[in-house]
Structure formats: structure tokens, C-alpha cells
């Protein structure tokens, strides 16, 4: 099995499929800072301009979604997160920021665990 840095729960995959049906290709950018910081923000692909200050953690393969959903984070934040594995989940909530799912009454949420030594080795960390 290929080691991943980011996975999605079945509930999050359902929501991604639904948002994809409405908005087309999607991307995530992991936020930091206050209020809704630490939440993953979901945008139409290309809405948020990534650059040299960002790292592409994963291209998520979601059943029923034709193209991969990219998952990005600023490189400075990634330096502090890279030892952890992230799972995108979804919970009832309001959110803030411009993430696409908030009007649906739900919010993407990150759950984390430590990457194992084997996983880190495979990821080259």
C-alpha cells in the first residue's frame, strides 16, 4: 500500500463528491491562525493561488470525482505538521472563511495522528 499524508473519511468523500457536482474541480488549502484556522479550506480548483510558499501534500483520489483533489499547505506550516498524518473529516458546523461547504451546515475538519517510522521512511522524511 502506498503511504499517504492525507486521507478522507467516507463522510468527507461524500461531501467532496457533492461539492464537485456543484462547483466542479476542487482543491484544499490547510489554514492556520485564528478563528477558523487549522481548518482545511475547500475551494474551486485554482481559486486559491498556490505558489513557491506552498507544498502539495496529496492529490486525493475520490471515487466518482474525475480529477484528483489537491491538498495544499503553506511550506512554513508543513514544516511543523510533516510528522503527522491528516484525515479530512466533516462535522456539523458553520465554518467561516470562504470554504465551499459552509452553507451546507457542515465543516471540513482535520483529524491527525503521528506518522509511523515506517511511513516516514517511505515518505523520505
Amino acid at each position: 500500500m502506498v503511504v499517504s499524508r492525507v486521507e478522507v473519511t467516507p463522510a468527507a468523500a461524500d461531501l467532496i463528491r457533492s461539492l464537485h457536482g456543484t462547483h466542479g474541480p476542487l482543491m484544499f488549502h490547510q489554514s492556520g491562525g485564528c478563528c477558523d484556522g487549522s481548518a482545511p479550506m475547500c475551494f474551486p480548483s485554482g481559486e486559491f493561488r498556490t505558489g513557491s510558499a506552498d507544498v502539495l501534500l496529496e492529490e486525493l483520489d475520490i471515487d466518482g470525482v474525475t480529477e484528483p483533489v489537491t491538498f495544499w499547505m503553506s511550506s512554513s506550516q508543513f514544516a511543523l505538521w510533516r510528522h503527522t498524518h491528516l484525515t479530512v473529516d466533516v462535522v456539523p458546523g458553520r465554518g467561516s472563511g470562504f470554504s465551499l461547504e459552509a452553507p451546507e451546515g457542515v465543516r471540513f475538519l482535520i483529524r491527525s495522528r503521528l506518522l509511523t517510522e515506517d511511513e516516514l521512511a517511505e515518505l523520505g522524511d
Partner: protein
Amino acid sequence: MTVYAAPGQDGAIVSYESRYDHWIGGEYVAPAKGQYFENPSPVNGRSFTEIARGTADDVERALDAAHGAADAWGRTSVADRANILNRIADRLEQNLEKLAVAESWENGKPVRETLAADLPLAVDHFRYFAGAIRAQEGGLAELDDDTVAYHFHEPLGVVAQIIPWNFPILMAVWKLAPALAAGNTVVLKPAEQTPASIHLMMSLIADLLPPGVVNIVNGFGVEAGKPLASSARVAKVAFTGETTTGRLIMQYASENIKPVTLELGGKSPNLFFDDVSARDDDFLDKALEGFTMFALNQGEVCTCPSRALIQQGHYSDFLAAAVDRTNAIKQGNPLDTDTMVGAQASNDQLEKILSYLDIGQREGAKLLTGGERADLGGDLAGGYYVQPTIFQGDNAMRIFQEEIFGPVVSVASFSDFADGIKIANDTLYGLGAGVWTRDMNTAYRAGRAIQAGRVWTNCYHAYPAHAAFGGYKQSGIGRENHRMMLDHYQQTKNLLVSYSTKKQGFF
């Protein structure tokens, strides 16, 4: 002790309307698409009013109203504008208790805080900017005997303001007061978690402002915030929130070549040097309260002192006393004036905090107290409560590096001055910091060495107007809470005037 009745209940001193539309051009306007969303109280998780779900059409309508009012408001004399701000302050002060209860119900924060901090600070903020604009002067430079450069302050015009949910009224006032003082008209979007208390405030002051000077469009970020932030019709965007949205707002602003001010949070260190524990006196008691400030407003403060750094010499004793102080926090009904810690503002906020309590333990941090959701039972059973929590760990852990925005503090020790400053500055952010010491030289040196916009020295979580507030590093751009914020809401007009009748000599 007083326990206020919930807004709208028997004996309540304040009631919310059952529905809030947009406030545009001095009247309530139904949303173009006719949709509304529920607004639950975090105190019990139940909805208490419904809110217009704004879209781009509503934003355009609000911008029309703001543009219609901008010219006259910008030409209103500073004396008149200041008088209006002072009248707003008086009106809020007369209704302080009502607004305090209403905001507590909407946000979940304890009413003791809204009574003693949020509302009095909001009142004073209007008065401060009323004074600041009266006292502001332009400038002139006599370049030579014939030539004078005059500098005038002019309003930007129509500005966009996106408000966070952690201090629904105060954060709106931090943005409104300087913008209005400087002669701008405003389109403001409240947070979707806490839109109603701003409307309640607006309903109390509506008669004091010309129609269209302040417009409020409710709604979700993607549906209402984005068309506002990306509009070519706004001269500036002010935002308080998190980094991804902050970058997106800068991106939109860059498309229109517009300025932004951003307040994006922090991971504020709170340093306790050994000499704090030199005596068992009032100062030590104050420092222990300073530690416990991590739980103020349920930790939902951009400057939450969420990293407590304690020098090794008194580490064990100070931390033990700090744990006791934390365990003495009274958590409960936010409308009880004895309650110190209330409810988190939303379910997703609660879930996010719980996810950090999980990863903190997975990373090996030691839980000293708290660590779980609090079930307060009874009428509060559906509310979003978290136990005040202390972790002991290492600054490399994620709970030391990310803003949890909950009542959670991560504690580490430091050996000496250099080590303390190194850990304090080992963060992506630089909004707030605290320094506690009896030695004035240590206090000064530490305050200057910490890379943060605000270093509370032998105090914490005070937010008086006239003390600049804003971030270093990734914490944002701009300084609120001070007359320098006027610069962020003003253009500089230079008239370069020649009093010579002689030609310049080029042609």
C-alpha cells in the same frame, strides 16, 4: 451573583427579533434570493433567530447604498462625525447591559466578560476615535520660499469589513470606529456564527447615522464575503480571521490593486521568569491570573496566551499553583455573572478543539488538567463546553504551534533569558506575548526581543484604545486600536503649490 434570563425568555432584559434581514441604506432589506439560515446559541445549541443568507446581489445593493452615502459622509465635518461617534458611544453605554447579555447568548462567552470588557471597550473605542479625528491634523512643508507642500487626509470612500465571531460587537467596533471617523462608508459582513448581536447594536444606533453610512450584509463567506472582498467597488478590505482566507483576500485585493488590513491570529507566548515567585504576594497572584488568562473567552482570542513558558528555577512550584488556579475556574451558564468560562462559539469549533486534545496526547504531551468536553447537563446539555486544559510538552509539538482557539494552554520550561526568547520566537506568528518579571531590565529586554506586535508586560489581555494592536510575521498587516488605524482608512492628498509667478524655465 446574577443569572440573566436568556434573551426572549420571561424576565429577560433583551430580546432578539425572530429574523434579521440585511441592513442596507438605513432599512432592513430581504435577501435577493429569499433564503435564511438558523442562528443557534452555543449555550444550548438551539436556534434563537434566523438570518438573511446574503449573496452577490445583496452585496451589490449594499455597495450601491454605501457609494450613495460616501460623498456626503466624507464631507461631513470632523466635528460632526466625532459628535455622532460620541452619541453612538453614549447610546451603547445606556444599553450596555442589554447588549452584554445578548452578545453572551449569541457567542457563548460569559456575561461577566461582556459586561466588564467587550461592551465598555466598544463604548470607549467610539469615544477614542471621536477624539482622534478631532485632533488629527494634516501637514505642510515649506519647500522653499515659493513652494509649499500641503498634505490632507481624505477618506478612502467605501470600505469592506469582515468581522470574526469571537468578539462579535467589539471586533466590529474596532473596524467601524476608525473607518467612520475617517469619513468612509462601510459594508460590513458579520461572522456567520454571530450575526445577530451586531444587528441588535445597529438597531440601537440606526437613528444616529445617515442612511447608507453603515450597511450590514449577512451570510456565508463563500456566498457574501467573497463578492464583497473581491469587489472592485471597495477601496479597502479589513479582515480578521485565519491565514488561508487572509491570503485569498490579499489575492482578490491584488486584482483590484486595493489595500488590506489583516489580523490573522497567533500562538502567543507568556513568559514567567524565576523572580516572579520570589515572594508570595499580590504580584505572584497577578502572575498566576496571567497564566490562567488562556481560558479567557474560552481561549477564543487571537492573542490567547496559549504557550506558557516558565523558567526552570520556579517551574514546578509555579506550575502547581497554576494548575490549582485553573482548577478553580468556574465553568457554566454564560448568563451567570459568576461564570468565568462559558461555551465555545460553535460545534465545529468544539470539534476542532477536541481534535487538538487528541493530537496533543498522541504527540506525547502530558495532560495536567482538563482534556475533555465538559457536559454541564440540564439546560446546558446541548452546549459546546470544553474543560480548561493544561498540557506540558515541547515547543515543536503541534499544540505549541497552532492556534487551537480553545481553553488550552501548552506549557514548557526555559533555562535562561536567551532560551526563553528563542522558544518564544519559535513560531510562525507574532501577534501577542506576555512577560512577567519583577526586574525592569529583564522586562524591557524581553519585550523588545520578542517578535510580536503587542507584548503585555506584567499584565495580559488588556485592550485599551490608544495601545496599538497588530501582528508581526504571519499574524497580519496593520495596527488597530490606535489612531494609526486612521492611516489605513485614509488617502493622503498632496497639494504642491507654487507661489511664484515666474516660469520654471524648461520651455
